[in-house]
């Protein structure tokens, strides 16, 4: 079937990308994926096979970044160990003396599989983030494995205007470069190549003062240039995927491809748990029991604080509310639950209806933008908005609790000291999801059985827990696809057809911020009841 439709004669660059190598000794594996693959027919089965193989590679990268520090020797060892030989030759570095046609074929598969996964993972923000992160890691890994010659060839082909600092200039400023360039291990070596870039291209290093800066130019050693190019790749991929997801939303082609794509994406990054796929028979009344049995620590913490303090701050209401929605608490029940609790905190019926009720209904997509928001995944909880001060209870306990608080809490829940130490150690090393997984395994006395070998999502934790504790109570609801909104079929589009963009459907990519704003406004209204409002004009005026 036709997946990519560009029947034009390939440009010179495309030709090189698709396989015609430039100079024999300068073969490079790394690819910026500026151009889509050749126009060709592939079977649905191949489509899936290619995608699965690349997914395996990306999973290995994810795993390595999880277990070790990116860029460390252990990271490299682990990747080499885990990658099966033929994949290593295909995706990382071909064997010396590999026949030309094999290299061409590898490159074809590389390009095809990358573009297939781009489509697969363009369906929601969480998946996009996951895919981009892994592709950037793969890109960086490949780029840093290239030789001086092949890197140069890659830059030429990709139209990057990076040329090493001429010897004379290098000699002149070498003493300064030695002092003003950050090297983790050891000193600058004589043969380190430096590149002179506009400082705007090296912001990450400028920010940390890791490279020498003069007259608007950053002097970047080759090791760090890899980061510059990887950042560029990240930006580029982000933009391309944003464009792509608009096209796919509009596209009619969904009867065969979309189900395959959905399956691929879900199997590897987890579902989005926006609610309702499974029925656990949840009511406000059995929440306390479920909390003790099956809530992950983050949700249990918020639940217990809600029961104890009869109030939760904004971020916690958001995180906990969406979690409850994800495990199937109905909107009306959620309103009832919060109303009951908050009334004990002295919030009147009127105040509740004015502020909080809208919040809850908004989360369920009943009011406002009517978007069915998904509960945040572990990555999102860990990487965004840490709790600020002792009154905020959202976030990930393994990341945001102090060591002693975590210990005390685990003790209260009856974990033996040995298990506690194992969890604490993981948390201290920054493996928060690993710690959560251990917590799951200790409290359930069973190993996690999913495809994914660690907890990725608080709702996944809950689901896995219910399946173990009370399998009979888990009933499937109709799959998510029957509830997908009808695909727009007014505009027939092809990738690369720029007209499609101007008629794009409403952009959903900013739903988080929008949601937050609406909510913040509500909060503002509530605060007016609770405390005195700062009377300043509120505009950004410097005095």
């Amino acid at each position, binding site marked *: 079937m036709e997946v990519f439709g560009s029947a034009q004669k390939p440009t010179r660059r495309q030709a090189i990308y698709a396989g015609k190598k430039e100079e024999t000794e300068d073969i490079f594996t790394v690819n910026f994926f500026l151009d889509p693959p050749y126009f060709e027919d592939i079977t649905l089965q191949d489509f899936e096979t290619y995608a699965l193989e690349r997914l395996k590679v990306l999973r290995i990268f994810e795993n390595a970044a999880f277990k070790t520090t990116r860029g460390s020797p252990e990271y490299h060892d682990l990747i080499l160990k885990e990658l099966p030989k033929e994949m290593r030759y295909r995706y990382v570095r071909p064997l010396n003396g590999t026949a030309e046609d094999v290299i061409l074929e590898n490159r074809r598969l590389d390009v095809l599989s990358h573009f297939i996964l781009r489509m697969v993972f363009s369906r929601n923000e969480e998946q996009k983030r996951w895919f981009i992160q892994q592709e950037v890691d793969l890109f960086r890994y490949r780029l840093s494995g290239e030789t001086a010659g092949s890197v140069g060839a890659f830059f030429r082909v990709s139209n990057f205007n990076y040329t090493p600092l001429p010897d004379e200039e290098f000699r002149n400023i070498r003493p300064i470069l030695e002092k003003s360039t950050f090297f983790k291990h050891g000193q600058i070596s004589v043969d380190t190549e430096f590149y002179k870039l506009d400082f705007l291209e090296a912001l990450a290093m400028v920010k940390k003062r890791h490279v020498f800066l003069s007259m608007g130019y950053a002097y970047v050693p080759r090791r760090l240039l890899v980061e510059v190019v990887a950042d560029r790749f990240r930006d580029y991929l982000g933009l391309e995927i944003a464009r792509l997801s608009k096209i796919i939303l509009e596209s009619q082609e969904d009867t065969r491809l979309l189900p395959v794509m959905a399956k691929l994406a879900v199997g590897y990054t987890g579902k989005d748990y926006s609610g309702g796929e499974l029925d656990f028979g949840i009511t406000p009344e059995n929440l306390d029991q479920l909390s003790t049995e099956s809530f992950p620590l983050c949700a249990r913490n918020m639940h217990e604080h809600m029961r104890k303090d009869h109030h939760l701050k904004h971020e916690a209401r958001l995180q906990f509310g969406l979690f409850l929605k994800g495990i199937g608490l109905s909107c009306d029940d959620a309103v009832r639950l919060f109303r009951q609790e908050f009334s004990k905190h002295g919030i009147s019926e009127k105040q509740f209806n004015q502020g909080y009720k809208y919040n809850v209904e908004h989360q369920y997509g009943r009011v406002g933008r009517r978007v069915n928001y998904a509960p945040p995944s572990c990555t999102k909880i860990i990487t965004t908005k840490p709790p600020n001060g002792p009154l905020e209870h959202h976030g990930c306990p393994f990341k945001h609790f102090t060591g002693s608080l975590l210990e005390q809490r685990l003790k209260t829940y009856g974990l033996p000291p040995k298990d506690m130490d194992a969890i604490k150690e993981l948390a201290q090393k920054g493996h928060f999801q690993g710690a959560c997984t251990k917590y799951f395994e200790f409290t359930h006395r069973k190993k996690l059985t999913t495809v994914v070998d660690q907890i990725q999502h608080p709702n996944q934790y809950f689901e896995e827990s219910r399946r173990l504790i009370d399998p009979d109570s888990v009933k499937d609801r109709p799959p998510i696809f029957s509830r997908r909104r009808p695909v727009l079929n007014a505009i027939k589009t092809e990738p690369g057809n720029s007209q499609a963009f101007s008629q794009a459907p409403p952009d959903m990519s900013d739903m988080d911020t929008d949601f937050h704003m609406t909510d913040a406004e509500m909060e503002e209204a509530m605060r007016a009841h609770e405390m005195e409002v700062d009377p300043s004009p509120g505009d950004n005026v*410097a005095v």
Partner: protein
Amino acid sequence: MSLKAPFNPDELPHHLSVYYRRFFPYSLFHRWLNYGHSDTGHFFALREFCFTLKDDVYLRYKSFETQKELEKGIQEYCPHKIDIGPVYSARIKDVKLNPLIVPVERELIFDIDMTDYDEVRLCCSSANICSKCWPLMTLAIKVIHRVLTEDFGFQNILWVYSGRRGIHCWIADKKARNLKSPARHAIIEYLTLIKAGLQGKERRAVLSNFDLEYQAVSKSLHLVRNHFLKNLVRDQGLMESEKGLAKVLAMLEDQELIAKVRAAIEPISGSERRWDKLTDMVGDYVASKKRNQDSWKTSNMLDELQVMFCYPRLDINVSHGLNHLLKSPFSVHPKTGRVCVPINPDQADQFDPFAVPTIDQLLEEMSDYDKAHPPLSATGTGDEPTTVPTKPPIPDWKKTSLKEGITIFETFVRKLEINWKREKAKENIKTEPVDTDF
């Protein structure tokens, strides 16, 4: 300066109306903010101005098509304060209704406010300044100006006294105006040595051994050390004032060390000799910790201490977005009556905030001048055809001490003009031969 008229806030509205008619440098102002665009290009009209009227009434989203319109607007409202906002993607007027109109261009700006130094100032606090603490601002200009010009290569930089307790910096190079938020953020971070502590901890300076070697930091530290020794240790007697000594000792953090140093320096008289003793003792302390695993915490504590006392503290919220308003040069500070005059960074040491003319003083100087130099036409019988009395041959600002500030401003605008002429010439050269090449 004995002639200086004291500032009288009650007269402000009246004086402002004279000031905006006779002193405000509209022409230079328009030449600056129009950035060499043609008059038909409507570029100037995309800029937001904000007027603050009496009793803090804000009029946001004002915009003006031409210099004439701007003049009319300012003279009509007679604002107590004028702020300059960003250049928007489309013209805004009075209210910003359309969410699609977004800021697209903005000078890189810095705001340094003396109140941010309160924890380390010995002499004044909050809005007050004196000749003892003002050198902190001078140091900030020197440190930041060097980084902006030498490291980032910016050329068109305007430093302005904020009228009371701080300074503003406008970087107007084309590249600076087009910076996106992450780039602004990176520049601020590059300049930052004092970081807010995690989760409610106090802010502090952290310097690694690498930082000390890094060229930009080492150049800044050189200035900081000089300032610390001269202004704080010598001029302000830091080590002999109870308040100052307590602050210095508290930054040593290790209680045992603090007690030891205190005991050792209290018998010594002389601020500088005490400081020398302290440096010796801290040096020994650092050496004794060298083999410890967390030696990085202590190894540069002396420099960190000095940085805490005087390294520039930026209000980062002003700088990292595009939409922050900043008080316009030549606005008048409504509380002090002082004009926000530009500062020459090469002579930052000579700038004295207390010598900055107040609005009352300007009016007085002008009338003194006019008395001393009666206009020629007034002596005649009025035969000559229409000598317009509001447009005398010498501009009014030239008769007053505003002259110096305007000269700095004009130099800044002229330099910009030279730059964009050069750029245009370059573009013309670039576009021509390309056609013939192929």
